[in-house]
């Protein structure tokens, strides 16, 4: 196995405050990699650096061995790196099918096509419909996004990311705000994603993290504390001290 997503000495400073402090991270191909850490540890900042939403103060990001540090967000998406957002960023007035079709059109390179109607991009629509079917969203395909329940909207977050056919998928607290019963269903959906899609997951629910991940990195104060298998992390005294002790009560 080789690393598909790497960072090398990544630093992000806001003024004197280092939100990301010398992070060197290797995400292996096909991994279910979780990133955990207490509130304010810099998890979302790290995701933003990986996707190009933020520019690092120092250090580099490699995607499939290629240095993408200088690439804009949409260029990284084209190279196979997609993400979801902790707080929904959806297209409220589009139907579910429309927004996912739009994302598929962008991946297929039709985004600049200004003449042929979307309705005649049949392959893109069919692909979007298949994706919605696989996420059990097909029965709300023609509903406007704004009219859907929050749990469904979280699934659209994932659908939009998957429409980019990513090799690496960054999930930023996919179950945030979703009622417990629905979050289980959400994670079953995530667990069913094809294994050649590498996943980096940020999640607060330790139960879900330990069931899902095969590799865990612990971030504290912007720096990597440790990285290991779930079993090793669960018995790591330092991790327990900073984080787990209070989170899962042993």
């Amino acid at each position, binding site marked *: 196995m080789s690393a598909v997503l790497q960072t090398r000495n990544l630093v992000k400073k806001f003024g004197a405050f280092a939100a990301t402090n010398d992070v060197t991270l290797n995400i292996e191909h096909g991994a279910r990699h979780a990133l955990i850490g207490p509130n304010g540890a810099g998890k979302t900042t790290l995701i933003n650096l990986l996707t190009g939403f933020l520019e690092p103060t120092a250090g580099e990001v490699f995607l499939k061995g290629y240095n993408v540090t200088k690439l804009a967000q949409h260029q990284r998406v084209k190279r196979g790196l997609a993400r979801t957002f902790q707080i929904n960023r959806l297209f409220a007035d589009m139907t579910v099918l*429309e927004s996912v079709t*739009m994302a598929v059109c962008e991946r297929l390179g039709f985004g600049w096509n*200004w003449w042929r109607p979307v309705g005649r991009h049949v392959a893109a629509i069919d692909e979007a419909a298949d994706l919605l079917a*696989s996420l059990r969203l097909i029965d709300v*395909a023609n509903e406007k996004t704004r009219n859907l329940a929050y749990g469904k909207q979280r699934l659209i977050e994932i659908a939009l990311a998957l429409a980019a056919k990513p090799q690496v998928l960054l999930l930023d607290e996919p179950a945030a705000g979703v009622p417990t019963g629905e979050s289980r269903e959400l994670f079953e959906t995530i667990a069913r994603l094809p294994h050649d899609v590498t996943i980096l997951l940020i999640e607060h629910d330790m139960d879900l993290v330990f069931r899902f991940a095969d590799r865990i990195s612990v971030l504290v104060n912007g720096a990597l504390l440790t990285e290991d298998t779930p079993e090793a992390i669960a018995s790591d005294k330092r991790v327990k001290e900073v984080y787990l002790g209070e989170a899962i009560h042993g």
Partner: protein
Amino acid sequence: MVREPALHESMMRPLAAQAPESTVAPDLAPLRRAAAWRVPEVIFWLIPLIAYFLFPKSLSLLSQIAITALFALSIDLILGYAGIVTLGHAAFFGLGAYAAGLLAKYGYGDPLLGLAFAAAVATAVGFLTSFLVLRGTDLTRLMVTLGVAMMLFEAANKATPFTGGVDGLQGVEMTRLLGVFGFDLYGKTAYWYSVAVLFVLFWVARRIVHSPFGMSLRGIKQNVARMPAIGAPVHGRLVAVYTLGAAYAGVAGALLTQTTQFVSLDVLAFTRSAEIMLMLVLGGTGCLYGALIGTIVFMTAHHFLSDLNPQYWQFWLGAALVLIVLFARDGIMGIAQRLQARLARRATP
């Protein structure tokens, strides 16, 4: 901590192999047929035909409405679809007006050549200024568009030998349209010419807004932060649509010059930028027809109210606008759509 093996196994299954739970075939028709022409649209485009026979003495007003509708369409593309706010869109209207006027004055009076030249000038300036406009947020955009339009206004005001300044540009001589139709005193040619150009450019705009490019503009307006995450280059798309809107405005300005054979300095005035925004909001943004209907209503109201009350007619206009923005933010088209939805619900209990 022991992980459930069942979960792990299901991870290995490829996505495509999953059978969806629901066997209901997805209804793809609404999206597939989104670009089809509808009956009300066809009826709408009969209006210019009917108006010609009903008001043969008002052809000059009707031409002005068609030209202004094209201008409103141009601002709908950038404001209504892409969400770029502008208070200086008259800059491109005025550029087109002067470009067509000067070209005709100096010996090239062919109308279609004039349109192409005006479009080229407005496109070039639109493209170059887009980089200034798109740098900032909404407030910056308002100020930059306003500033660019003010500079052009004063430049045209100062360059009297070239533009005629406040006296306007005289000596615009048009040759026959397509070498056949001369511009007559009754304004028949001017009317059909304006309506035809409006219809062709409307049709093109309609294609554009239903294309993936047009869809991405709506995406940018609804959630600009998401678009890069689905792989869309937001800045490039906005440059493209701003340039397109400038080109449309330039053609509208050129039409005004050609049909009136005169260019007045107020083609670049701030009131023109402000009024066109009012017309669009009145009609409803982001649906093309809102631009057309808003223009028709605004200019007709203007015509009758200024007859009734020549000095204070804008009072009623102001009142109508306040009511629209307070109670029907999506304009006349929004009201029409809500009525239609209500009727449809009543029809299928």
